[in-house]
Protein backbone atom coordinates (compact mmCIF):
# COMPACT_ATOMS: atom_id res chain seq x y z
CA UNK A 1 0.00 0.00 0.00
CA UNK A 2 2.85 2.37 0.92
CA UNK A 3 4.48 2.07 -2.49
CA UNK A 4 1.18 3.10 -4.11
CA UNK A 5 1.07 6.26 -2.06
CA UNK A 6 4.74 6.81 -2.89
CA UNK A 7 3.79 6.51 -6.57
CA UNK A 8 0.93 8.93 -5.96
CA UNK A 9 3.29 11.40 -4.30
CA UNK A 10 5.62 11.19 -7.26
CA UNK A 11 2.79 11.63 -9.76
CA UNK A 12 1.18 14.43 -7.74
CA UNK A 13 2.56 17.45 -9.65
CA UNK A 14 1.30 16.03 -12.98
CA UNK A 15 -2.03 15.01 -11.45
CA UNK A 16 -2.51 18.51 -10.10
CA UNK A 17 -1.69 19.92 -13.54
CA UNK A 18 -4.38 17.60 -14.88
CA UNK A 19 -6.92 18.73 -12.29
CA UNK A 20 -6.13 22.32 -13.22
CA UNK A 21 -6.73 21.57 -16.92
CA UNK A 22 -10.04 19.87 -16.05
CA UNK A 23 -11.10 22.82 -13.89
CA UNK A 24 -10.12 25.32 -16.59
CA UNK A 25 -12.02 23.43 -19.28
CA UNK A 26 -15.04 23.25 -17.00
CA UNK A 27 -14.84 26.99 -16.35
CA UNK A 28 -14.39 28.02 -20.01
CA UNK A 29 -17.01 25.54 -21.21
CA UNK A 30 -19.47 26.67 -18.54
CA UNK A 31 -18.87 30.37 -19.31
CA UNK A 32 -19.57 29.83 -23.01
CA UNK A 33 -22.52 27.56 -22.22
CA UNK A 34 -24.00 30.17 -19.90
CA UNK A 35 -23.77 32.98 -22.45
CA UNK A 36 -25.33 30.75 -25.12
CA UNK A 37 -28.03 29.54 -22.72
CA UNK A 38 -29.16 33.06 -21.94
CA UNK A 39 -29.10 34.25 -25.57
CA UNK A 40 -30.79 31.16 -27.00
CA UNK A 41 -33.13 30.82 -24.03
CA UNK A 42 -34.34 34.43 -24.31
CA UNK A 43 -34.80 33.99 -28.06
CA UNK A 44 -36.69 30.71 -27.58
CA UNK A 45 -39.01 32.35 -25.01
CA UNK A 46 -39.60 35.37 -27.26
CA UNK A 47 -43.15 35.82 -28.57
CA UNK A 48 -42.01 36.56 -32.13
CA UNK A 49 -41.47 33.63 -34.48
CA UNK A 50 -38.47 35.30 -36.12
CA UNK A 51 -36.56 34.92 -32.84
CA UNK A 52 -38.02 31.60 -31.76
CA UNK A 53 -37.55 29.49 -34.88
CA UNK A 54 -33.77 30.03 -35.40
CA UNK A 55 -33.17 29.52 -31.66
CA UNK A 56 -35.12 26.25 -31.72
CA UNK A 57 -33.15 24.98 -34.71
CA UNK A 58 -29.81 25.75 -33.04
CA UNK A 59 -30.93 24.24 -29.71
CA UNK A 60 -32.25 21.02 -31.27
CA UNK A 61 -29.18 20.69 -33.46
CA UNK A 62 -26.70 20.86 -30.61
CA UNK A 63 -28.83 18.76 -28.28
CA UNK A 64 -29.52 16.11 -30.90
CA UNK A 65 -25.95 15.51 -32.08
CA UNK A 66 -23.95 14.07 -29.24
CA UNK A 67 -21.23 15.99 -27.33
CA UNK A 68 -18.54 13.53 -28.39
CA UNK A 69 -19.52 13.86 -32.06
CA UNK A 70 -19.31 17.66 -31.80
CA UNK A 71 -15.89 17.54 -30.15
CA UNK A 72 -14.45 15.22 -32.78
CA UNK A 73 -16.09 17.11 -35.61
CA UNK A 74 -14.58 20.39 -34.40
CA UNK A 75 -11.23 18.70 -33.81
CA UNK A 76 -10.90 16.89 -37.16
CA UNK A 77 -12.97 18.96 -39.58
CA UNK A 78 -12.22 22.58 -38.60
CA UNK A 79 -8.52 22.31 -39.56
CA UNK A 80 -9.60 21.10 -43.01
CA UNK A 81 -11.56 24.36 -43.34
CA UNK A 82 -8.43 26.29 -42.49
CA UNK A 83 -9.48 27.01 -38.89
CA UNK A 84 -6.68 25.86 -36.61
CA UNK A 85 -7.68 26.11 -32.99
CA UNK A 86 -5.83 25.09 -29.86
CA UNK A 87 -7.27 21.79 -28.53
CA UNK A 88 -8.31 23.60 -25.32
CA UNK A 89 -10.36 26.02 -27.42
CA UNK A 90 -11.92 23.10 -29.31
CA UNK A 91 -12.74 21.42 -26.00
CA UNK A 92 -14.32 24.52 -24.47
CA UNK A 93 -16.20 25.23 -27.71
CA UNK A 94 -17.63 21.70 -27.93
CA UNK A 95 -18.65 21.62 -24.27
CA UNK A 96 -20.03 25.17 -24.43
CA UNK A 97 -22.13 24.59 -27.55
CA UNK A 98 -23.57 21.30 -26.34
CA UNK A 99 -24.40 22.33 -22.79
CA UNK A 100 -25.40 25.81 -23.94
CA UNK A 101 -28.19 24.17 -25.92
CA UNK A 102 -29.33 22.20 -22.87
CA UNK A 103 -29.05 25.32 -20.71
CA UNK A 104 -31.15 27.30 -23.19
CA UNK A 105 -34.05 24.94 -22.53
CA UNK A 106 -33.68 25.57 -18.80
CA UNK A 107 -33.60 29.35 -19.30
CA UNK A 108 -36.63 29.24 -21.62
CA UNK A 109 -38.59 27.03 -19.21
CA UNK A 110 -37.78 29.25 -16.21
CA UNK A 111 -38.73 32.47 -18.00
CA UNK A 112 -42.02 30.91 -19.05
CA UNK A 113 -42.77 29.78 -15.50
CA UNK A 114 -42.54 33.25 -13.96
CA UNK A 115 -46.18 33.83 -12.92
CA UNK A 116 -48.26 35.72 -15.50
CA UNK A 117 -49.21 38.32 -12.86
CA UNK A 118 -45.61 39.53 -12.91
CA UNK A 119 -45.76 40.03 -16.67
CA UNK A 120 -49.08 41.84 -16.37
CA UNK A 121 -47.70 44.06 -13.61
CA UNK A 122 -44.84 45.17 -15.89
CA UNK A 123 -47.40 46.14 -18.50
CA UNK A 124 -49.43 48.02 -15.88
CA UNK A 125 -46.28 49.90 -14.88
CA UNK A 126 -45.54 50.46 -18.61
CA UNK A 127 -42.01 49.09 -18.39
CA UNK A 128 -40.15 48.61 -21.67
CA UNK A 129 -39.25 45.09 -22.81
CA UNK A 130 -35.59 45.42 -21.74
CA UNK A 131 -36.44 46.81 -18.31
CA UNK A 132 -39.15 44.21 -17.84
CA UNK A 133 -36.72 41.36 -18.51
CA UNK A 134 -33.79 42.84 -16.61
CA UNK A 135 -35.54 44.11 -13.51
CA UNK A 136 -38.61 41.87 -13.07
CA UNK A 137 -38.68 38.65 -15.06
CA UNK A 138 -35.05 37.51 -15.24
CA UNK A 139 -34.24 37.86 -11.52
CA UNK A 140 -37.20 35.61 -10.70
CA UNK A 141 -36.41 33.16 -13.51
CA UNK A 142 -32.77 33.14 -12.36
CA UNK A 143 -33.70 31.76 -8.93
CA UNK A 144 -35.82 29.08 -10.64
CA UNK A 145 -33.14 27.99 -13.13
CA UNK A 146 -30.15 27.60 -10.79
CA UNK A 147 -30.92 24.02 -9.59
CA UNK A 148 -31.14 22.75 -13.19
CA UNK A 149 -28.08 24.76 -14.27
CA UNK A 150 -26.25 23.21 -11.32
CA UNK A 151 -27.02 19.71 -12.65
CA UNK A 152 -25.86 20.73 -16.10
CA UNK A 153 -22.63 22.14 -14.69
CA UNK A 154 -21.84 18.79 -13.06
CA UNK A 155 -22.68 17.08 -16.38
CA UNK A 156 -20.33 19.42 -18.21
CA UNK A 157 -17.54 18.76 -15.72
CA UNK A 158 -18.05 15.00 -16.18
CA UNK A 159 -18.02 15.49 -19.96
CA UNK A 160 -14.50 16.96 -19.82
CA UNK A 161 -13.15 13.48 -19.03
CA UNK A 162 -13.26 12.64 -22.77
CA UNK A 163 -10.87 15.41 -23.88
CA UNK A 164 -7.70 13.32 -23.73
CA UNK A 165 -9.01 11.92 -27.03
CA UNK A 166 -8.52 15.33 -28.59
CA UNK A 167 -4.95 15.46 -27.25
CA UNK A 168 -5.60 17.43 -24.05
CA UNK A 169 -3.68 16.17 -21.00
CA UNK A 170 -6.50 16.49 -18.47
CA UNK A 171 -6.89 14.70 -15.13
CA UNK A 172 -8.19 11.45 -16.70
CA UNK A 173 -5.16 11.36 -19.01
CA UNK A 174 -2.78 11.47 -16.06
CA UNK A 175 -4.76 8.74 -14.25
CA UNK A 176 -3.67 6.35 -16.99
CA UNK A 177 -0.06 7.20 -16.19
CA UNK A 178 -0.70 6.66 -12.48
CA UNK A 179 -2.29 3.27 -13.23
CA UNK A 180 0.96 2.10 -14.81
CA UNK A 181 2.92 2.70 -11.61
CA UNK A 182 0.23 1.61 -9.12
CA UNK A 183 -2.92 -0.38 -9.98
CA UNK A 184 -6.33 0.03 -11.59
CA UNK A 185 -8.40 0.37 -8.45
CA UNK A 186 -6.04 2.82 -6.80
CA UNK A 187 -5.64 5.05 -9.87
CA UNK A 188 -9.14 5.12 -11.35
CA UNK A 189 -11.43 4.45 -8.39
CA UNK A 190 -9.59 5.77 -5.36
CA UNK A 191 -7.74 8.77 -6.81
CA UNK A 192 -9.74 9.40 -9.99
CA UNK A 193 -13.39 9.02 -9.08
CA UNK A 194 -12.90 10.48 -5.61
CA UNK A 195 -11.24 13.63 -7.00
CA UNK A 196 -13.98 14.10 -9.59
CA UNK A 197 -16.57 13.59 -6.84
CA UNK A 198 -14.97 16.31 -4.72
CA UNK A 199 -14.93 18.70 -7.72
CA UNK A 200 -18.62 17.93 -8.34
CA UNK A 201 -19.49 18.52 -4.67
CA UNK A 202 -17.67 21.87 -4.69
CA UNK A 203 -19.50 22.93 -7.87
CA UNK A 204 -22.85 21.89 -6.35
CA UNK A 205 -22.05 23.76 -3.15
CA UNK A 206 -21.19 26.94 -5.08
CA UNK A 207 -24.40 26.70 -7.09
CA UNK A 208 -26.43 26.18 -3.91
CA UNK A 209 -24.85 29.34 -2.50
CA UNK A 210 -25.76 31.17 -5.69
CA UNK A 211 -29.35 29.97 -5.36
CA UNK A 212 -29.60 31.17 -1.75
CA UNK A 213 -28.29 34.56 -2.82
CA UNK A 214 -30.71 34.78 -5.76
CA UNK A 215 -33.63 33.92 -3.49
CA UNK A 216 -32.50 36.39 -0.87
CA UNK A 217 -32.53 39.14 -3.48
CA UNK A 218 -36.16 38.26 -4.16
CA UNK A 219 -36.91 38.64 -0.46
CA UNK A 220 -37.01 34.90 0.25
CA UNK A 221 -34.73 33.51 2.94
CA UNK A 222 -31.50 34.74 4.45
CA UNK A 223 -28.52 36.17 2.62
CA UNK A 224 -25.29 34.18 2.41
CA UNK A 225 -23.58 36.57 4.79
CA UNK A 226 -26.31 36.03 7.37
CA UNK A 227 -26.10 32.26 7.03
CA UNK A 228 -22.32 32.19 7.27
CA UNK A 229 -21.93 34.77 10.03
CA UNK A 230 -20.93 33.19 13.36
CA UNK A 231 -23.23 35.43 15.42
CA UNK A 232 -26.66 35.48 13.82
CA UNK A 233 -28.27 38.90 13.70
CA UNK A 234 -31.72 39.51 15.12
CA UNK A 235 -33.12 39.49 11.61
CA UNK A 236 -31.43 36.17 10.84
CA UNK A 237 -32.91 34.57 13.96
CA UNK A 238 -36.39 35.55 13.05
CA UNK A 239 -35.90 34.66 9.41
CA UNK A 240 -36.62 38.20 8.26
CA UNK A 241 -34.64 40.18 5.74
CA UNK A 242 -32.64 43.28 6.56
Amino acid sequence: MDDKFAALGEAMPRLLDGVWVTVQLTAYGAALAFVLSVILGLAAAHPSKAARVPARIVIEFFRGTSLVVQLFWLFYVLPLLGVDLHPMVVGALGLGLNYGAYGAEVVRGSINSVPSGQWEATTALSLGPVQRMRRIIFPQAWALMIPSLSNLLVHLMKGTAIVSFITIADFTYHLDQLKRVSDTFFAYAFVGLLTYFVIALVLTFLMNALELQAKHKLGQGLSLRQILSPAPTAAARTGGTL
Partner: protein
Amino acid sequence: MIPAAAAVSVATALDWNWETTWEALPILLMQFLKVTLVVTVLSTIIAAVLGLFIAMAIRLAPRPVAIAVRWIANFIRMTPIVVQLLFAYYAFLQLDAITIGVIIFGIHYSTYMSEVYRAGIDSVPKGQWEATTALSMSTRRTWSAVIIPQALRATIPALGNYGVSMFKDTPFLLVIGVVELVNAGLIYGGNTYRYIEPLTLVGVIFLLASYPTSLLIGRLEKRLAFNT
Protein backbone atom coordinates in the same frame (compact mmCIF):
# COMPACT_ATOMS: atom_id res chain seq x y z
CA MET B 1 -34.64 25.68 -52.11
CA ILE B 2 -32.41 28.11 -50.26
CA PRO B 3 -31.34 25.60 -47.57
CA ALA B 4 -30.61 23.05 -50.30
CA ALA B 5 -28.52 25.57 -52.24
CA ALA B 6 -26.71 26.56 -49.05
CA ALA B 7 -26.02 22.92 -48.25
CA VAL B 8 -24.57 22.39 -51.73
CA SER B 9 -22.31 25.44 -51.46
CA VAL B 10 -21.11 24.44 -47.98
CA ALA B 11 -20.49 20.92 -49.32
CA THR B 12 -18.39 22.39 -52.14
CA ALA B 13 -16.39 24.52 -49.72
CA LEU B 14 -15.76 21.45 -47.56
CA ASP B 15 -14.61 19.46 -50.57
CA TRP B 16 -17.39 17.02 -49.79
CA ASN B 17 -17.05 13.69 -51.54
CA TRP B 18 -20.29 11.81 -52.23
CA GLU B 19 -18.52 8.58 -53.18
CA THR B 20 -16.91 8.50 -49.73
CA THR B 21 -20.29 9.29 -48.21
CA TRP B 22 -22.03 6.33 -49.85
CA GLU B 23 -19.12 4.07 -49.00
CA ALA B 24 -19.04 5.09 -45.32
CA LEU B 25 -22.80 5.09 -44.74
CA PRO B 26 -23.44 1.30 -44.67
CA ILE B 27 -20.38 0.72 -42.47
CA LEU B 28 -21.57 3.32 -39.97
CA LEU B 29 -25.18 2.13 -40.01
CA MET B 30 -24.00 -1.43 -39.32
CA GLN B 31 -22.10 -0.36 -36.16
CA PHE B 32 -25.02 1.85 -35.18
CA LEU B 33 -27.44 -1.09 -35.27
CA LYS B 34 -25.06 -3.71 -33.92
CA VAL B 35 -23.45 -1.73 -31.10
CA THR B 36 -24.98 1.69 -30.33
CA LEU B 37 -28.61 0.57 -30.36
CA VAL B 38 -27.97 -2.76 -28.64
CA VAL B 39 -26.03 -1.10 -25.81
CA THR B 40 -28.69 1.61 -25.46
CA VAL B 41 -31.57 -0.86 -25.21
CA LEU B 42 -29.86 -3.30 -22.83
CA SER B 43 -28.50 -0.55 -20.58
CA THR B 44 -31.86 1.20 -20.46
CA ILE B 45 -33.50 -2.03 -19.26
CA ILE B 46 -30.82 -2.54 -16.59
CA ALA B 47 -31.03 1.10 -15.50
CA ALA B 48 -34.83 1.07 -15.30
CA VAL B 49 -34.91 -2.07 -13.11
CA LEU B 50 -31.91 -1.19 -10.93
CA GLY B 51 -33.14 2.39 -10.55
CA LEU B 52 -36.43 1.17 -9.09
CA PHE B 53 -34.56 -1.03 -6.60
CA ILE B 54 -32.37 1.89 -5.55
CA ALA B 55 -35.39 4.17 -5.09
CA MET B 56 -37.16 1.53 -2.99
CA ALA B 57 -34.03 0.77 -0.96
CA ILE B 58 -33.66 4.46 -0.11
CA ARG B 59 -37.28 4.52 1.03
CA LEU B 60 -37.73 1.14 2.69
CA ALA B 61 -34.33 0.05 4.00
CA PRO B 62 -33.20 0.85 7.57
CA ARG B 63 -31.83 4.37 7.85
CA PRO B 64 -28.08 3.64 7.80
CA VAL B 65 -28.49 1.41 4.73
CA ALA B 66 -30.68 3.98 3.02
CA ILE B 67 -28.11 6.72 3.64
CA ALA B 68 -25.30 4.50 2.35
CA VAL B 69 -27.26 3.64 -0.82
CA ARG B 70 -28.03 7.31 -1.41
CA TRP B 71 -24.38 8.35 -1.10
CA ILE B 72 -23.17 5.53 -3.33
CA ALA B 73 -25.77 6.57 -5.91
CA ASN B 74 -24.68 10.22 -5.63
CA PHE B 75 -21.07 9.18 -6.02
CA ILE B 76 -21.79 7.21 -9.20
CA ARG B 77 -23.99 9.98 -10.60
CA MET B 78 -21.52 12.80 -9.95
CA THR B 79 -18.41 11.14 -11.38
CA PRO B 80 -17.56 10.79 -15.10
CA ILE B 81 -18.77 7.68 -16.86
CA VAL B 82 -15.51 7.77 -18.83
CA VAL B 83 -13.48 7.09 -15.70
CA GLN B 84 -15.99 4.47 -14.54
CA LEU B 85 -15.69 2.70 -17.89
CA LEU B 86 -11.88 2.77 -17.76
CA PHE B 87 -11.89 1.47 -14.20
CA ALA B 88 -14.27 -1.41 -14.94
CA TYR B 89 -12.49 -2.27 -18.17
CA TYR B 90 -9.10 -2.71 -16.52
CA ALA B 91 -10.53 -4.23 -13.33
CA PHE B 92 -12.49 -6.96 -15.15
CA LEU B 93 -10.27 -7.90 -18.04
CA GLN B 94 -12.07 -11.24 -18.44
CA LEU B 95 -15.21 -9.43 -19.68
CA ASP B 96 -15.33 -7.96 -23.16
CA ALA B 97 -15.64 -4.22 -23.63
CA ILE B 98 -19.26 -4.21 -24.82
CA THR B 99 -20.41 -6.19 -21.76
CA ILE B 100 -18.54 -3.75 -19.51
CA GLY B 101 -20.18 -0.90 -21.40
CA VAL B 102 -23.70 -2.29 -20.98
CA ILE B 103 -23.17 -2.89 -17.25
CA ILE B 104 -21.54 0.49 -16.51
CA PHE B 105 -24.08 2.46 -18.56
CA GLY B 106 -26.86 0.50 -16.81
CA ILE B 107 -25.46 1.26 -13.35
CA HIS B 108 -24.59 4.89 -14.10
CA TYR B 109 -28.02 5.72 -15.47
CA SER B 110 -29.83 3.71 -12.77
CA THR B 111 -28.71 6.42 -10.34
CA TYR B 112 -30.48 9.02 -12.50
CA MET B 113 -33.54 6.86 -12.93
CA SER B 114 -33.78 6.22 -9.18
CA GLU B 115 -34.32 9.98 -8.77
CA VAL B 116 -37.11 9.80 -11.34
CA TYR B 117 -38.76 6.94 -9.46
CA ARG B 118 -38.35 8.80 -6.18
CA ALA B 119 -40.20 11.79 -7.62
CA GLY B 120 -42.83 9.43 -9.06
CA ILE B 121 -43.34 7.72 -5.70
CA ASP B 122 -43.58 11.10 -3.97
CA SER B 123 -46.23 12.19 -6.48
CA VAL B 124 -48.64 9.42 -5.42
CA PRO B 125 -51.24 11.20 -3.27
CA LYS B 126 -51.10 10.66 0.48
CA GLY B 127 -54.67 9.34 0.47
CA GLN B 128 -53.50 6.31 -1.48
CA TRP B 129 -51.05 5.40 1.29
CA GLU B 130 -53.72 5.93 3.92
CA ALA B 131 -56.14 3.77 1.95
CA THR B 132 -53.68 0.87 1.88
CA THR B 133 -53.37 1.17 5.67
CA ALA B 134 -57.14 1.32 6.06
CA LEU B 135 -57.46 -1.83 3.94
CA SER B 136 -54.60 -3.36 6.00
CA MET B 137 -52.64 -4.29 2.90
CA SER B 138 -49.20 -5.82 3.32
CA THR B 139 -46.15 -3.73 2.40
CA ARG B 140 -45.58 -5.94 -0.60
CA ARG B 141 -49.12 -5.53 -1.90
CA THR B 142 -49.15 -1.80 -1.13
CA TRP B 143 -46.15 -1.32 -3.39
CA SER B 144 -46.98 -3.77 -6.16
CA ALA B 145 -50.71 -3.06 -6.49
CA VAL B 146 -51.07 0.59 -5.47
CA ILE B 147 -47.90 2.69 -5.37
CA ILE B 148 -45.72 1.44 -8.23
CA PRO B 149 -48.46 1.35 -10.89
CA GLN B 150 -49.35 4.97 -10.14
CA ALA B 151 -45.75 6.11 -9.75
CA LEU B 152 -44.78 4.53 -13.08
CA ARG B 153 -47.34 6.51 -15.01
CA ALA B 154 -45.63 9.75 -14.04
CA THR B 155 -42.14 8.39 -14.62
CA ILE B 156 -42.32 6.78 -18.07
CA PRO B 157 -41.58 9.97 -20.08
CA ALA B 158 -38.67 10.94 -17.81
CA LEU B 159 -37.24 7.43 -18.10
CA GLY B 160 -37.53 7.75 -21.86
CA ASN B 161 -35.63 11.03 -21.77
CA TYR B 162 -32.81 9.38 -19.84
CA GLY B 163 -32.82 6.59 -22.44
CA VAL B 164 -32.22 9.24 -25.11
CA SER B 165 -29.45 10.87 -23.02
CA MET B 166 -27.83 7.49 -22.64
CA PHE B 167 -28.04 6.98 -26.39
CA LYS B 168 -26.19 10.25 -26.92
CA ASP B 169 -23.60 9.23 -24.30
CA THR B 170 -22.79 5.87 -25.95
CA PRO B 171 -19.81 7.42 -27.85
CA PHE B 172 -18.01 7.51 -24.48
CA LEU B 173 -17.62 3.76 -25.07
CA LEU B 174 -14.78 4.52 -27.46
CA VAL B 175 -12.49 5.11 -24.46
CA ILE B 176 -12.49 1.33 -23.87
CA GLY B 177 -12.14 0.56 -27.57
CA VAL B 178 -15.74 -0.31 -28.42
CA VAL B 179 -16.38 0.36 -32.11
CA GLU B 180 -19.69 2.16 -31.78
CA LEU B 181 -20.89 4.80 -34.22
CA VAL B 182 -18.34 7.57 -33.49
CA ASN B 183 -15.40 5.21 -33.21
CA ALA B 184 -16.44 3.59 -36.52
CA GLY B 185 -16.39 7.07 -38.07
CA LEU B 186 -12.94 7.82 -36.62
CA ILE B 187 -11.55 4.47 -37.82
CA TYR B 188 -12.97 5.08 -41.28
CA GLY B 189 -11.38 8.55 -41.23
CA GLY B 190 -8.05 7.16 -40.10
CA ASN B 191 -8.01 4.60 -42.91
CA THR B 192 -9.06 6.90 -45.71
CA TYR B 193 -7.82 10.30 -44.44
CA ARG B 194 -11.35 11.59 -44.96
CA TYR B 195 -12.95 12.76 -41.74
CA ILE B 196 -15.58 15.21 -42.97
CA GLU B 197 -17.97 12.68 -44.50
CA PRO B 198 -17.95 9.97 -41.82
CA LEU B 199 -18.05 12.39 -38.86
CA THR B 200 -20.81 14.49 -40.41
CA LEU B 201 -22.80 11.35 -41.17
CA VAL B 202 -22.37 10.25 -37.56
CA GLY B 203 -23.83 13.55 -36.38
CA VAL B 204 -26.73 13.30 -38.83
CA ILE B 205 -27.51 9.74 -37.72
CA PHE B 206 -27.54 10.84 -34.07
CA LEU B 207 -29.81 13.77 -34.85
CA LEU B 208 -32.20 11.70 -36.98
CA ALA B 209 -32.45 9.05 -34.29
CA SER B 210 -32.70 11.21 -31.17
CA TYR B 211 -34.84 14.17 -32.25
CA PRO B 212 -37.96 12.22 -33.36
CA THR B 213 -37.65 10.03 -30.26
CA SER B 214 -37.60 13.14 -28.05
CA LEU B 215 -40.67 14.48 -29.85
CA LEU B 216 -42.51 11.19 -29.30
CA ILE B 217 -41.60 11.23 -25.61
CA GLY B 218 -42.86 14.81 -25.37
CA ARG B 219 -46.22 13.75 -26.80
CA LEU B 220 -46.36 10.76 -24.47
CA GLU B 221 -45.70 13.11 -21.56
CA LYS B 222 -48.72 15.23 -22.49
CA ARG B 223 -50.93 12.15 -22.82
CA LEU B 224 -49.89 10.57 -19.55
CA ALA B 225 -50.13 13.76 -17.50
CA PHE B 226 -52.34 13.25 -14.45
CA ASN B 227 -54.66 16.16 -15.03
CA THR B 228 -55.97 15.26 -18.51
